[in-house]
Structure formats: C-alpha cells, structure tokens
C-alpha cells in the first residue's frame, strides 16, 4: 500500500523503473488482493496521463480550473472518473494545494487517493480542503455524472443519469445512450433514456430535420414543464419545419397543462384549507362552543410548535435514531402542554370573565403578549430549526402536479383530528356533558354536572387541539414567538364564516376559504387575493350574520 502511495505522489517522476518496481511489488505480495481496477489505476498513475493532468486542476481552488478538471476527468475514460465526479458532487472531494494531490472520501469515510484509487494510510496532508462548487459547476457535474453513470448497475442511478442527460443535452453521452437503450430492461429507465436521446438529438446541429421532428414527438409525449422548457429553448437557427413542430407541440402541452393547473389549484386550496381548519378547529371549541373570545389561541399553537422543537432537541441529543418518530412523540406532549396551559388560563383568568366578552378579549390579548414574550425570553427571539422527518420531506408527481409530502400528511392529520373531535363530542361522556353545559348551563347543573369543571376541560380541550395544530404547523412555518399571530385572524374568520358553534361549519368554511383563495391567487396575486377574500366574507356576513351553518332553536339564545 505504501508503495503505491509513494508511486502516486511521485507520479511526475514516473519512470519505467518505478513501474517495474510496482510490478514486482504486486507480484511479490499477491495477498494484498488489489482489485484489477485499482491495479490498473495505479499503473496509469505512474505515468502522468490526461486523467492525472485533469486532477491537478482541482488543486488551485479556482472555479475556472475546476471546470477544466471536471471536463478532463469526465473525458479521460479512467475507471475512477465516476467516483471522483460523484465525490465532487457530494462535497467529498478534497485537495492539498501544497502536495498537489487530490483525495476523496468513499462511503465508509475512508480517504482515497484520487490518482491511484488506493486508500491513504497515515495522516493526510495538513492543508486538506474541499473542492468548492458553484451553481454552474454543479450543473456541469450533473451532466458529467449523467454520461458516466448511464451504464451503472443500479436502475435508480441509471434513471438519474438519463434525467441528467435530458437536462444537459450533452452530445458526448450519445454513443453511451445508443449502447445502453437496447440493453435496458427497466421500462421506466428505458423511456427516460429514449427521451434523453431525443433531447440530445434535438439540440445537435448535425441531426437531420426528420429526426429532429421525431425527437420533438418523443419529447412532447412527456407533456410536462421540462418538455416545455426543452422545446421553448430551441435555438433560433432551427429550420422552419422544426420550429413549427416545436410550437405545435408546445401549444398542445400547454392545453393539457391548463387542466392540470385547475387540479393543482384545487389541491393547493385543500392544503391551505386544511391549515386553516387546523388552526381554527381549537378555536371552534373555545370560541364556537364556549363563546370565549380567546385572543391567546394563536399562542397555544405556538406552544405546540415549541414543544415539537424541544422534543426534537432532546431526541437529537439523546437518541438520533428516533428522529423519524419525533412528531409522533411530540403530538401527545403538545396536546398535554397546550391543554394544561389552557386549563390554567381558564381557571386563572377566564372563569372570572364569563359574560363579559370585551374584558375577555382584552385579558386574553394581554395574555397572548405575555406568552409571546415569555417564550422569547426562554428560547430567544430567533427562529428555531424544526426539521421535517424524512417521511415528510420531498414530493412526488401525480400526473403533472407536484404533491409535497408535508402538505399531504397535514391534510390527513387535520381530518383525523376533526373526526376524532366529532367522535369525542358525540360518543363520550365528556362530550355529552360539554354539549349539555353549552346548550343549557342551568339545566345541566341541576342534573348534577359540575359545570365549572366542564368549562375548564372544554377550554383545555380547545387549547390542546391548538397545540396539535402547532406540531403540524412547525413543519411548514417558522417556529418563532410570532408563530401564533399569523393564524389568529384567519382562525376567527373561518369560525365566524362557517357558523359559530358548528364544527361542520368550520370544516366547510376552512376548505371554502382555502380553495377560493388559491383560485384567486394566480389572477389577483397573494396580496389582492387576501383582500378580496376579506371583502367577500364581510359581504357574506352582512347577508348571513350567523355564518354558513347557523345554529337554530333555543341553543342560539343561551
């Protein structure tokens, strides 16, 4: 091993003598079991070839030189090229400017000499620094990886490679593509490769016109935004027939995308609606059912989010393996924390203020400021990093729309809470007593229900659900002391619009507002869209002061 390293570091002095020495060395110690690839790499290392020259470009820490390095390594055909470019892509390629050597770390974090492929023994050079990239280079690296990994054994890698070539339109990949397509067994990868080949052909000046038009047909079947980008970016030098085929294809893609656009708006609306519902559902209990104007409702949401933060911090410090379960652990805790604070508020302040809405409003407003500042003092004013567990990051494509996992799970979570709450109110004793107290307090009391206990529990339940909302919102919004403020107005809007005292009203109200907002936004912009919604609600309330689903009968007067 030492010999090979030694040979590499002196590769410029490479002599036939050294090669002979190397030969003898490996012949003498076959137990070393050097792989054939490694041996070949070691052999070429002894004489400075194009690959070694290209590697040297990485040692100057200049973006221009790194460009030459990437191109050189990718074109060298050296078996280590894919490993080096892959390491560069993932920030694992490093260099020593003094020793003019390049290294990379493999998956097991072992430092490898990039020139020879041999592991480095002993201490690495002191001035080891990572080879830096900028966006342009990252694009270049992606393209190079595309060409280099088209024949990789892993189908996921091949798919990635084909997609990279589709974007880079690198003509150098054409021979490999032609080789790879007939051999490809995975239908999805094969399709991606055919599309990549079409993209390359379309942008290659030497392609005959008929082939270009065929390529356009292949690409237009993708019918997505990447296809649009590819067809829209055709150079002005293209022939009229090609241009016409491209613009026809663009028109038909745009037609089909217009329908998907409506589906996408609907999905975004559902997603926004679920967030609104989540924030409002606790308020539907405290305000809707109990009639307490609770301005500190947003702060209960914030407490839930901070609970999630604390849970994640503890997990990070104690047991990182549990990280994917952090939300599952945070959910009951957030419910308990926010619910407990809610009960304290009800017992400490609100029970003295029943029937005095104005004073309740002011007291809870003051309380919300206190809670905000308390959190600011305890945790500091800056945003806290609440990470998405892996199952909540990223997105998948459904047809032509992108669905992000975090939004999808939030919709599911919201609906679960809603159903759970309905069941609680309908089927449990606590729910029965809650309904009894809110519908007719005096009668409920004379039936032996402890109304003050039920008041506290109801308020605690509403606050606890706000805490649950905080867990979900921590996944999409800032976790800062101001988190709750952003939702309090929207929550009241939803509850009032849906009809005070009716959970179904809150559900319909939230989704109506969400969807209306998302259909308005593309035309009116986010600012005007919000204003328009507000105006519409004001007009609606003029017509129906009790909201969408007004309670009827004696309960209204209670």
């Amino acid at each position, binding site marked *: 091993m030492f010999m090979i390293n030694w040979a590499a570091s002196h590769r410029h002095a490479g002599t036939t003598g050294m090669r002979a020495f190397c030969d003898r060395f490996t012949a003498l110690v076959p137990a070393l079991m050097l792989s054939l690839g490694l041996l070949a790499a070691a052999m070429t290392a002894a004489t400075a070839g194009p690959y070694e020259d290209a590697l040297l470009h990485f040692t100057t820490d200049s*973006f221009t030189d790194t460009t030459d390095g990437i191109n050189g390594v990718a074109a060298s055909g050296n078996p280590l090229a894919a490993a080096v470019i892959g390491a560069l892509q993932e*920030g694992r390629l490093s260099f020593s400017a003094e020793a003019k050597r390049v290294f990379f770390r493999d998956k097991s974090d072992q430092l490898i000499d990039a020139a020879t492929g041999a592991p480095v023994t002993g201490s690495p050079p002191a001035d080891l620094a990572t080879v*830096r*990239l*900028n*966006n*342009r280079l*990252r*694009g270049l690296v992606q393209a190079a990886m595309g060409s280099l990994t088209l024949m990789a054994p892993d189908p996921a890698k091949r798919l990635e490679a084909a997609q990279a070539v589709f*974007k880079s339109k690198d003509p150098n990949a054409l021979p490999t593509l032609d080789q790879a397509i007939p051999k490809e067994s995975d239908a999805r990868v094969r399709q991606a490769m055919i599309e990549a080949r079409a993209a390359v052909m379309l942008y290659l000046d030497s392609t005959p016109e008929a082939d270009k038009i065929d390529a356009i047909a292949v690409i237009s079947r993708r019918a997505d*935004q990447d296809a*649009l*980008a*590819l*067809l*829209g*970016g*055709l150079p002005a030098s293209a022939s009229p027939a090609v241009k016409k085929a491209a613009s026809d294809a663009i028109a038909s893609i745009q037609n089909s995308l217009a329908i998907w656009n409506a589906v*996408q*708006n609907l999905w*975004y609306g559902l*997603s*926004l609606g679920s*967030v609104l519902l989540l924030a409002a559902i606790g308020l539907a209990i405290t305000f809707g059912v109990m009639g307490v104007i609770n301005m500190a409702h947003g702060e209960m949401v914030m407490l839930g989010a901070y609970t999630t933060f604390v849970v994640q911090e503890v997990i990070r410090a104690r047991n990182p393996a549990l990280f994917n379960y952090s939300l599952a652990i945070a959910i009951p805790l957030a419910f308990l924390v926010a619910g407990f604070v809610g009960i304290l508020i009800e017992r400490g302040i609100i029970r003295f203020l029943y029937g005095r809405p104005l004073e309740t409003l002011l007291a809870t407003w*003051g309380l919300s*400021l*206190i809670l905000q*500042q*308390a959190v*600011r*003092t305890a945790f*500091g*004013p*800056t*945003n*806290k*990093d609440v990470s*998405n567990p892996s199952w909540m*990051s*990223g*997105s998948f494509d459904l047809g032509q729309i*992108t669905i*992000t*996992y*975090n*939004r999808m799970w939030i919709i599911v979570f919201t609906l679960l809470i809603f159903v759970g709450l309905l069941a609680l109110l309908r089927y449990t004793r606590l729910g029965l007593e809650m309904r009894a107290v809110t519908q007719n307090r005096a009668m409920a009391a004379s039936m032996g229900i402890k109304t003050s206990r039920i008041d506290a529990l109801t308020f605690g339940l509403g606050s606890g659900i706000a805490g649950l909302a905080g867990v979900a919102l921590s996944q*999409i*919004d*800032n976790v*800062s*002391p*101001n988190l709750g*403020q*952003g939702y309090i107005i929207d929550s009241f809007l939803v509850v009032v619009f849906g009809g005070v005292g009716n959970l179904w009203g809150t559900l319909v109200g939230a989704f109506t507002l969400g969807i209306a907002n*998302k259909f308005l936004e*593309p035309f009116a*912009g*986010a*600012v005007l869209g*919000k204003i328009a919604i507000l105006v519409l609600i004001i007009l609606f309330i003029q017509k129906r002061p009790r909201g969408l689903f007004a309670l009827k009968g004696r309960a209204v007067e209670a």
Partner: protein
Amino acid sequence: MHTPTGAVAQRPFARRLLAATAGLAFGLAAAAPALAQDTIKVGILHSLSGTMAISETTLKDVMLMLIEEQNKKGGVLGKKLEAVVVDPASNWPLFAEKARELITKDKVAAVFGCWTSVSRKSVLPVFKELNNILFYPVQYEGEESERNVFYTGAAPNQQAIPAVDYLMSKDGGDTKRWVLAGTDYVYPRTTNKILEAYLKQKGVADADIMINYTPFGHSDWQTIVSDIKKFGSAGKKTAVVSTINGDANVPFYKELGNQGVKATDIPSVAFSVGEEELAGIDTKPLLGHMAAWNYFMSDPAPINKEFIKTWQTFIKNPKRVTNDPMEAHVIGFAMWVKAVEKVKSTDPDKVIDALPGIEAPNLSGGISKMLPNHHITKPVFVGEVRADGQFDVVWKTPGLVPGDAWSKFLPESKDLIGDWVTQKCGNYNTVTKKCGGA
C-alpha cells in the same frame, strides 16, 4: 427605571409584566461599570419585543459588546461609554417616542438603531429637530441622504445591482429570465423598481421579468413556487431575486426544497437572508441558493475570526452566528469613536462634520470609508448556502463599492447626489445645480 449603574431599560406593557425575567436579559446592559457624571451615553434603539425582535435583539447585544470592548480600551476622550437601551417594541410611532426620550431625557451623544425603513422614517423628524446622530445598520432601498443619519448598511448599488450582475455573468449562470419576488412594503418595491429599470437597460424584455409581491409573514407559498417553476420552464435560464422579508423566508425555502426547485435549475439570490435566518431552516435542500451581502461569517479574514471569537465569548454561546448588519454596527461604531476623538467633542454638529472621510476597518479585511453622502464604501459578496447553514463566497466585487444615496437607474433620482461636505445638501441636483431634488 434607572438601574443602579445607570443603564436604562424602558419597557412596554408586556415587558413590565415580565420585569422579573426580562431583568435577567438586561443584566448585560447594566454591566458597564461607570458613574453617571463622567460617562458618554450612547443610545441603542432596537426592538427587543414584537415581530422585529427576531432580528434586532442581536444588534442590541453587539452594541453592548462594542461598548464594553471600547471601555476596556479606556473609553472615549478619557470617559467611559454608557449604553442606554430602550425597547421600541416593533411599534413604529414608539420608535419616534423612544428616540425623543433618548435624546432629551438621557442626553445621548449618538444613537445606533432601527431596522425597518418605516422605523427609520418615523424617527427622522426627531433626529432633525433635536439635532442628534443616528447610525442605521441595515441594507435599505436608498433614495435618501439626511444630515443626521449615517447609513452603514448597503444601498441598492452595493447589494442588488452587483448580485444581478453576477447572475448575468457566465459563472452566475447567464440568466435571461428574472423573477423579482418580494414582501409588499417599501424596501422590496423600491429595490425591484430599480432592478427592473436596470434589467431593461441591459436589454431584458418585459415578458422575461415576473414581479410578485406577498404580504408580511406569508406562509403558503405553493402557488408562487409552482408559478416560478412554470415561469422557469420557458427554455431560458431563470433566476429568482428575492427581497422577501425575514419571517416569510422559512416557509418559502421549505416549499422550494420540497417542490424540488434546485439551485442548478432555478437559483435564487436573497437580500434579506443571512446566517441568522438560516439558523431556523434545514439547509440541505437549499444547497447553492444564494445571498448577496457585504459580509459573511465564513470570511477568512483574521479580523473576522477575532470578531467572531469576541462575540461568542460575550454572548456565552459558541454557536451564535454573526451577520451583515452586525458588521455595519461594528464599522459605524468605530467611525463614530474616531470622529469623536478627532474633534475631541461629542457635540453632534462637530461629529457630523468630522465623519465624512473617516475610515474604519471592515470585517472582510478592507478599510471602509464614510462618504460625503453619509453612506460608506463596502465590498459586495455573493455567497452560496452550504449544508452547515453558512455561506460559501463564490463571487466578490474587485474593490470596495461606494454607496449611492440616489439610484442612477431611476429617472426621478438619476441626477441627484447627497453631498454634506461641499454642497451641504442631501438631494443636490447635478444638472440644475440646485439643492432640493428635481
């Protein structure tokens, strides 16, 4: 409200209720060991509660540190400095009230403060009327040069224009299509107006510019991010120039990451996102998205390493980050100290006249200079987000860029300059040779 050592902390309603706990946070303010009669008072006007506390609290802390460090060196003119901290609570009219209190009641020699442009505009009349000095440390929209204000943050030509130049260059991706996304208030609106004029002057067509505004604290970015994706699929290289303000950035970046908008496809460059903001996000999906600033914490200059060490020791947290507005206060404070020592007085009139021409080291190893228009010279950096929440500088201006008070790219201000040395005028028209705008 005077603590025994003389440091003052005026608290709003909510603070007062929490006096016991809040008192702990102010222990630092009370640390300046000095007697009231032989100190020079320095006002610190940053929100410690409310929405802006997230950004401004750090600036209060850095000022306390700078004052403490100066006192260790023997203070100024043989006197100790004394910090007077007030909390304007992110409430714009309260900024004016607190500024008045600092100047008339506490008789401060200078004030370091404000973050948002609206807070600066609200204290302006007070500083003019009572003739005191304000050091304003945040990048802003320009179009202003006042006798009593010294702008140590970036003007648009020290941040926005160089960033766009970089994106247009080959290394920056040869961008042809532009999304200008911002929060709906004065800084993004003016900056985008300047950028739009600049881009059109560079030959960018109307159809290749998309301008989008969102409300403060906007949290549902699904539609806008998918619009950006759509706008970017027209076959030309597209970039996002973001003037999105503080809180709205986290959900914006989360949405970018989740919808898979990669910096290699559609890079974004932000003017209000620094190390502090990134501390609240998982930066792995954001690799390669950019920010333009005059200072990055990752700068290798020895003076910066020293500063970071002092700061982390002072704040007792080895992980606390530094950012651009903090550097602006470092430069502004050093300039004020030098000016006071030069004229041997803290009299505002003398200090205001002495400040232009004063030089102080910035934290990236250069020397910044106060200009006659009360802006300073600064280097401009473009940094790419790294996986550890820091920035990797990928581009910088060859030298220091002097700040323009008035933009050359807007028709209404292209002939104006600020010159408080020869013309004694903040809006001198170089064509009509008159003071007072157009």
